[in-house]
């Protein structure tokens, strides 16, 4: 802060006979006014899809609040105790203190079960909202320069959130926790060479041991939440620094942000949204049972229950485990468990690596190194959209595989049939989804072009004096036309000519050739928006044939009524 500002603030507060103003009081001591003046007027654009990340943020706040409540009673200890609490069906059983204290929270602490269930539901919502937020960012291209780092931070948040969720799922030391941890142990064991060492290091000896729950507790309430808070702060600071992306439209450019200021509009909207998220979570926690640990009973390695599944965000990993064929290799007296290693370790690494490097790969293929603050419509990036949908499809197949024990009896299907469907579907369906989505996007592009050139279909059929019938096409309004034409004309990268005018051979490194080919794949099929000349020509042509202006004669373009129907041309083609 500069000296002049400091002087001014001291002078303001020092005037005699003036009532002490609390804002001034605060500002004199913190100097927040200058910062707030700028940040409170910060503009955010209005679109529902920009609020998905907010659901994650508010869920995280709810997780912190309910988590603190739970930590007041939860005892992360494997000490064996005899349960003497309120739940009669387990009274007198010996169990770990962790499980007993979770029962106490559920049955003997006022509001404890509500808090536990809210904590669990909001964990599910936290990761779900991070995921849909990430999909929004992906499909609109909001990860492009300058936001690549924020994409990576977001990916880190998602991964940490999943680990944090799994840690929480494992803490109560109920039957399901134990089964989940046993699988986690198996996954660690499957890592070649170091697997056994890692397991012994993590569990402090043989599974399950007495050390793991206290260790996991520290990770769950201190380590990961701390990193999450730091990363969320970084994520939002970068958001403020980059300014929010926006949908293209009249008046919205790559150099401005059109929307409403933080204070008061977004303060109210975001604050209100917090209460909605809290309300929905509280309703779910109060009305919908989640993780009924009293039915699972304390963990006992000799027991297992049907419908032992992970929470949904680990479902894709579990699905991979369920459909993987039982492949093993034994070499030099060591067993390589491909059946666990491939679906758990390799698959997880693959997914997160692909997500992490995607922005850089796309940037290299398209050769686009400029900054982007305007969002893409998914149809205008057919290949990216198709990749995204293919990824979602693979994820969905793994989800189905993880739910096979519920889906089977529910729909009278054989579990083996579901397994084989998923085994084949995991490889076939994403390819199909890619092709279909890409085609779909191209068709939508073609449709946009049609609408620009020939207007939209009014649904009004006219009969000419000769008796011919035709449908009137009316021009779309200028705003829609602007929105449909505002994206850039994209063309694949071209290799420089092999020989220049003087016959000198230009070098064409293999990397560049691969890149040109990929770029052709990326943009080669795009249906470009019409050029200005094409538009001129089309309108001229339409005027000649009375197509576009044909409506004028029946008086619809003036926003009048046709046959008594309310038919407002200005409103209808609102694209």
């Amino acid at each position, binding site marked *: 802060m500069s000296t002049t500002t400091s002087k001014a603030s001291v002078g303001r507060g020092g005037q005699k006979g003036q009532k002490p103003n609390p804002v001034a009081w605060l500002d004199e001591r913190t100097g927040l006014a200058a910062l707030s003046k700028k940040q409170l007027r910060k503009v955010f654009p*209005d*679109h*529902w899809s*920009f*609020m*998905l990340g*907010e*659901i994650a943020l508010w869920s995280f706040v709810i997780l912190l609040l309910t988590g603190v409540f739970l930590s007041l009673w939860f005892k992360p200890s494997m000490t064996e105790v005899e349960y003497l609490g309120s739940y*009669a*069906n*387990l*009274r*007198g*059983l010996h169990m770990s203190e962790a499980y007993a204290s979770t029962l106490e929270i*559920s*049955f003997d602490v006022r509001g404890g*079960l509500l808090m536990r*269930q809210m904590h669990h*539901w909001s964990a599910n*919502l936290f990761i*779900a*909202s991070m995921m*849909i937020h990430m999909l929004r960012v992906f499909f609109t291209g909001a990860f492009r320069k300058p936001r690549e780092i924020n994409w990576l931070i977001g990916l880190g948040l998602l991964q940490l959130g999943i680990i944090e969720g799994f840690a929480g799922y494992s803490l109560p030391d109920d039957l*399901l926790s134990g089964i989940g941890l046993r699988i986690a142990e198996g996954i660690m064991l499957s890592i070649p060479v170091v697997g056994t060492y890692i397991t012994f290091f993590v569990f402090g000896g043989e599974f399950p041991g007495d050390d793991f729950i206290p260790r996991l507790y520290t990770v769950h309430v201190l380590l990961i939440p701390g990193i999450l808070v730091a990363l969320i702060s970084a994520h939002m600071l970068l958001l403020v620094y980059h300014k929010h992306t926006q949908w293209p*439209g009249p008046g919205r450019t790559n150099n401005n942000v059109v929307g*409403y200021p933080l204070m008061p*509009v977004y303060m109210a909207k975001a604050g209100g*949204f917090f209460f*909605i998220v809290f309300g*929905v*979570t509280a309703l*779910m926690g*109060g*009305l*919908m*049972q*989640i993780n*009924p640990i009293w*039915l*699972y*009973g304390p963990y006992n390695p000799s*027991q297992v*229950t*049907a*419908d*032992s*599944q992970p*929470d*949904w965000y680990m479902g894709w990993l579990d699905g991979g485990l369920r459909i993987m064929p039982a492949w093993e290799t034994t070499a030099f007296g060591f067993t390589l468990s491909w059946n666990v290693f491939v679906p758990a370790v390799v698959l997880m690494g693959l997914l997160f690596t692909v997500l992490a490097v995607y922005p850089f790969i796309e940037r290299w293929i398209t050769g686009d190194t400029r900054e982007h603050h305007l969002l893409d419509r998914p149809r205008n990036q057919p290949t990216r959209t198709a990749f995204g949908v293919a990824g979602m499809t693979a994820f969905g197949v793994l989800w189905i595989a993880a739910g096979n*024990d519920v889906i*089977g*009896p529910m729909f*009278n299907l054989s*579990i*083996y*049939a579901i397994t084989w469907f998923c085994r084949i579907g995991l490889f076939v369906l994403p390819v199909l989804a890619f092709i279909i989505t890409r085609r779909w996007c191209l068709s939508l592009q073609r449709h946009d072009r049609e609408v620009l050139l020939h207007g939209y279909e009014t649904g009004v059929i006219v009969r000419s004096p000769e008796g011919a019938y035709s449908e009137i096409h009316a021009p779309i309004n200028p*705003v829609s036309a*602007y*929105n449909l034409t505002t994206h850039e004309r994209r063309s694949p990268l071209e290799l420089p000519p092999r020989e220049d005018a003087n016959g000198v051979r230009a070098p064409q490194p293999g990397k560049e050739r691969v890149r040109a080919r990929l770029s052709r794949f990326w943009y080669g099929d795009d249906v470009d928006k019409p050029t200005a000349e094409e538009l001129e020509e089309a309108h001229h042509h339409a005027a000649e044939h009375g197509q576009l202006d044909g409506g004028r004669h029946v008086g619809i373009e003036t926003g009048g009524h046709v046959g008594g129907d309310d038919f407002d041309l200005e409103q209808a083609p*609102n694209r």
Partner: protein
Amino acid sequence: MKFLSSRRRHPLAGLLVVLLGLIAVGASYSAFRPAVADDTRDDTELIAEGRELYVVGCASCHGLNAEGIVTKRGDNYGPPLIGVGAAAVDFQVGTGRMPAQRPDTQIPDKHPAYGDEEVSALAAYIASLGPGPAIPAEEYYDVTDATEEEIVRGGQLYLTNCAACHNYAGSGGALPEGRYAPPVRGVEPRYIYEAMLTGPQQMPVFSDEVLTPEDKHDVIAYIDSLDTQANYGGSNLGSLGPVGEGMWAWLVGIGSLVLAAVWIANNGARAGKSKS
């Protein structure tokens, strides 16, 4: 004697004498009546009646003499029923599983085709073919006055022996090849007992050596306690485990929150005016 003689002409005296006489005759009849012979005759009748029902309703699959029918591939069209015992018949027919509507990987329960008397006739007929588990007496499965210790013990037995297929809350689960473990919640205690005793369809037999009658009683007491206890924490969403919970998190949670986001974004300061 003065008490009686002075009232011998009382209007109700004659009635009393007749009543005493009737009681004396009835008591001596029941004491000397040929009870054993009568019972045997009843059983024979029951078996004959059971056989008649069997021939009409069951023989097409299980064979005319319950010897079973083997298909050309060597599978059982209907398995032999000699030695399955009355308990198996009471379970299969009493829960409506038998007679089956068609041969299938698993025969589901449905509205029973036979009444109680017909079921006991069928059971008597099958029991007469060879020794097998009898229908348990009510004292074995009556859990109305089960103690807390019995329920807790039954819970551990349930989680060790039953939950792997029938799920932690008794809502059933999947088995390979399209088979399934049916829900055990809301099933009559007698049928749960008989199922453990006879191992119907996919279920293994939990004989009295594996699970003693006392164990079986406690397991039933635990299942019964699940039916009577409150759904702590709200609707159990079908007790399908985390996959079910995840579905509701997406449908109810994310669904309503996205709708709220749409609503918030479309309303507020000058909403609608700036829409392009």
